[in-house]
């Protein structure tokens, strides 16, 4: 009888703890959000009406680092931010043209310098606060262009290296939204009209400037005032005060557990509706689990644990066996926009100790276009597609993958597998075979090292195929599988390498986004970055064409210029392109209104997807 007496007070305490824990937890953040009726200007989507209330489960490959679009760098953070923030314009997922989003329409002045956007009327932020031109002006003028003031004089601080005022909140989007370092003038003509005045003609402004996510002034104003804008909307905000993350997107952050999951809930004040007048989105909640390993998340999908998943090409065969059991479909979207390529270090400089980055005799080979073309002819791309990717990839011949059909030049010079031609080109360039090894005219055996990242098995397999293809020419390739960050350090800082195999993902919707890669002074001009003046004639020509693409408004002329860029790249082979994997997305069959497009993928009309509530 003594035991219960002992036990009882403890039990009461435990109950109290439970109660207090329950009381201190914030109430569901959206329970009390005021819902403002849909305005007349709301967009009606062209899909059959659906039903509200379903739950969508997905995974993402990495944890989010921030929810602040000014400092977000990684893909996971970017994906989470794009759920709740939107821009004035966007790309049409079918045609690739620019279509209205938060702006209803726009006018461009004849000289191409003034863009006037007419915003949709009666739209509200997720917390019910009206969305007006003041928010647009705030995003550009306050969040991006606020100057750093000298506390003593009250004057803007001038950066000695650029000669321009320093920004108070230096961020990537802020620099991105300057044109050749000059600010864009933004003014509100009335509550629903904004005018942007550009310092010079800038062709992709409608896409890059118009696509800029708009920030809520009524929430972030105080962070601009007290100088904490870059610290706002951090992971801490997401964990403790998700209500502060106000946006115009279809979803709102409901809760976040670091390393575990992110939960989004539908925005009750979203500005799109279906033909029956129901407010979108239909999905009630999105639960995104953070799964570090893409194999593990592919397995989770194959076991029916998630609703949608981007699938690796080499996993399709066994995943498709579970399609009937777990009732899903694998949508094949054709070539993806990720590329893979080999390049040689063409940087003529030397290290601080005076040692050239590349040995002079090797530099002689690498900078000979016939050598690069011979290498390109010797690469068995179709073999890589068939063997390494089990046929689920496409041989790549140019800078733009066929997915980006508006900008893809299908007629560039192709280097189909032809070892005999490769040998002929090498002989023409003065290389000779001695025994089974290739030697240059001076008698040096031809060999080089090739590095690639060690955590991608498809890439390491491509590298071994490349090495075997080179061995067939008598060239010895030493493979180095090292971690990604070391590769980036060696290709962009120490330049201490001979050749590398890497890839680019997320092909840009506008060619001008590639200027950092293609122009000779670009930071990402892989083979020889940040040149003071173009090292070769063809690089000078590419620079000229890229500048034209930047200031030409006529789309046909831009396309012609970019086609020429691709032709030069194919002719000169500074990047020896290999393959582009095909894109596969798995989606459970319960989802309705699914209309995959090559450009937009499967989930582009996410706000119109619906399923019967589970």
């Amino acid at each position, binding site marked *: 009888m003594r035991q219960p007496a002992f036990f009882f007070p403890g039990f009461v305490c435990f109950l109290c703890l439970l109660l207090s824990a329950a009381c201190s937890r914030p109430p569901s953040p959206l329970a009390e959000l005021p819902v403002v009726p849909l305005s007349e200007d709301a967009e009606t989507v062209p899909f059959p009406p659906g039903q509200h209330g379903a739950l969508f489960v997905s995974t993402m490959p990495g944890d989010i680092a921030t929810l602040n679009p000014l400092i977000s760098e990684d893909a996971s953070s970017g994906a989470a931010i794009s759920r709740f923030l939107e821009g004035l314009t966007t790309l049409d997922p079918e045609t690739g043209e620019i279509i209205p989003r938060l702006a209803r329409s726009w006018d461009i002045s004849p000289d191409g310098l003034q863009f006037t956007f007419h915003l949709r009327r009666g739209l509200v932020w997720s917390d019910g606060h009206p969305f007006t031109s003041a928010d647009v002006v705030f995003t550009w003028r306050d969040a991006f262009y606020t100057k750093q003031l000298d506390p003593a004089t009250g004057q803007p601080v001038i950066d000695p290296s650029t000669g321009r005022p320093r920004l108070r909140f230096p961020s990537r989007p802020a620099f991105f939204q300057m044109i050749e370092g000059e600010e864009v003038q933004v003014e509100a003509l009335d509550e629903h009209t904004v005018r942007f005045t550009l310092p010079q003609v800038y062709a992709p402004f409608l896409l890059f400037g118009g696509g800029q996510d708009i920030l809520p002034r009524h929430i972030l104003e105080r962070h601009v005032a007290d100088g904490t804008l870059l610290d706002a909307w951090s992971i801490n905000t997401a964990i403790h005060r998700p209500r502060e993350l106000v946006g115009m997107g279809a979803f709102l952050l409901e809760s976040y557990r670091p390393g575990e999951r992110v939960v989004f809930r539908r925005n009750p004040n979203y500005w799109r509706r279906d033909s029956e007048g129901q407010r979108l989105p239909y999905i009630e909640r999105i639960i995104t689990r953070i799964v570090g390993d893409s194999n593990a998340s*592919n397995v989770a999908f194959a076991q029916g644990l998630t609703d949608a998943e981007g699938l690796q090409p080499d996993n399709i*065969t066994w995943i498709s066996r579970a399609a009937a059991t777990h009732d899903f479909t694998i949508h094949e979207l054709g070539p993806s926009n990720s590329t893979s390529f080999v390049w040689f270090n063409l940087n003529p400089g030397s290290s601080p100790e005076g040692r050239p980055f590349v040995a002079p005799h090797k530099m002689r080979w690498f900078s000979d276009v016939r050598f690069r073309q011979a290498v390109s002819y010797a690469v068995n791309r179709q073999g890589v597609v068939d063997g390494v990717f089990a046929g689920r990839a496409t041989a790549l011949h140019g800078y733009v993958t066929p997915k980006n059909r508006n900008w893809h030049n299908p007629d560039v010079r192709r280097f189909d597998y032809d070892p005999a031609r490769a040998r002929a080109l090498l002989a023409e360039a003065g290389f000779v075979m001695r025994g089974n090894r290739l030697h240059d005219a001076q008698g040096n055996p031809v060999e080089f090292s090739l590095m690639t990242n060690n955590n991608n098995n498809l890439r390491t397999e491509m590298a*071994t195929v490349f090495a*075997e293809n080179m061995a067939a020419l008598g060239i010895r390739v030493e493979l180095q599988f*090292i971690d990604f960050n*070391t590769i980036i350090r060696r290709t962009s800082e120490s330049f201490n390498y001979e050749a590398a195999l890497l890839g680019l993902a997320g092909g840009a919707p506008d060619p001008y986004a590639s200027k950092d890669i293609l122009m000779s002074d670009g930071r990402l001009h892989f083979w020889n970055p940040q040149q003071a003046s173009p090292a070769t004639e063809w690089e000078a020509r590419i620079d000229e064409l890229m500048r034209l693409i930047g200031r030409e408004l006529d789309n046909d002329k831009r396309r012609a210029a970019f086609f020429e860029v691709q032709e030069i790249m194919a002719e000169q082979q500074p990047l020896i392109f290999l393959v582009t994997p095909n894109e596969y997305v798995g989606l459970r069959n319960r989802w309705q209104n699914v209309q995959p497009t090559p450009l937009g993928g499967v989930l582009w009309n996410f706000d119109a997807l619906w399923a019967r509530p589970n």
Partner: protein
Amino acid sequence: MKSIFREVLRRRLGQISLFTRLALYLTALFAGFLATQPVNQQNLDATFHPPTRVTWHDGGLAVRAYRLVDRSGPHYEVIPGEFHRVRLFAPGFDYKLLGLVPMKRHLLQAESPEARLYLLGSDSTGRCVFSRLVYGSRVSLTIGLIGITITLFLGLLVGGLSGYFGGRIDFFAMRGVEFLMAIPSLYLLLALRSVLAPRFSSDQMFIVIVIILSLIGWAGAARVLRGMSLSLRRRQFVLAAESMGQSPLRILRLHILPNLASYLLVAATLSIPGYILGEAALSFLGLGIAEPASSWGLMLSQAQNIKIFMLNFWWLLTPGAAIFVTVIAFNLLGDVLRDVVDPRMKTQ
């Protein structure tokens, strides 16, 4: 020494383990002769090819012909009624027997170039798993020998001397040993690997890592040997030798070393599997042997892809079986040796 060998051979387990080891080391020595294909020869039209069946057909050895049914699997089917002739001791690709004699003859070669002779299937770029396994045995088997030689040599030198002389030498030697034992070797390896990676090619790199590992790893052996020589030092025959005025070097060589030999033999045999497994673990982590060289650990690490389990490409796991057999053989031999050299500790 001869009598130990005879004793080992008298026991069933000793015979099994000794002959297994002999077979393994002969495989490593004659890898070029046994391999059916060059170690890096790829065939992108025959990736993940299943093991080809060798049969008796029409009065000679032959392999079945296969057809690629579904590239995306990839999935192969036997073509009924079609065979390719294979020959023993037939000419094939060039190699050097024992690294010296240029040769062309191989144990098994297909006659026609279309025939696919994959005794243990092919891997993700269509390389012959059997040939890679055979060539890989060189790395996996020599690594233990190199490692154990360095470890025991250093252990004997430091342990034996400090145990014999004692006093200050002993004190400092043992503190040094403790210092070495305190180094977290995995982190050291990770650091060394990233620092040294650009300077060495992958096969050199591996030897460097094994040397580093054994340079850290001799501390344990040194401690045991020091204890043993400390106790031998007090034995009457050593005291007698000392009182007769023999030099310390002579005593060490004639009286102490022979008494340590039995322990050394057993310790060496029992710690070689540690190096073999260590190589496998390091290659699995991407720190060991790298492409295009071949080793069992590397082959296993390439088999850790999920699709290999899901699509049941079991032949890619054979390096695991090879490691298993080797390690068991070494451990059995170690046990037998211990029984032989130390009859008081009989296990059976």
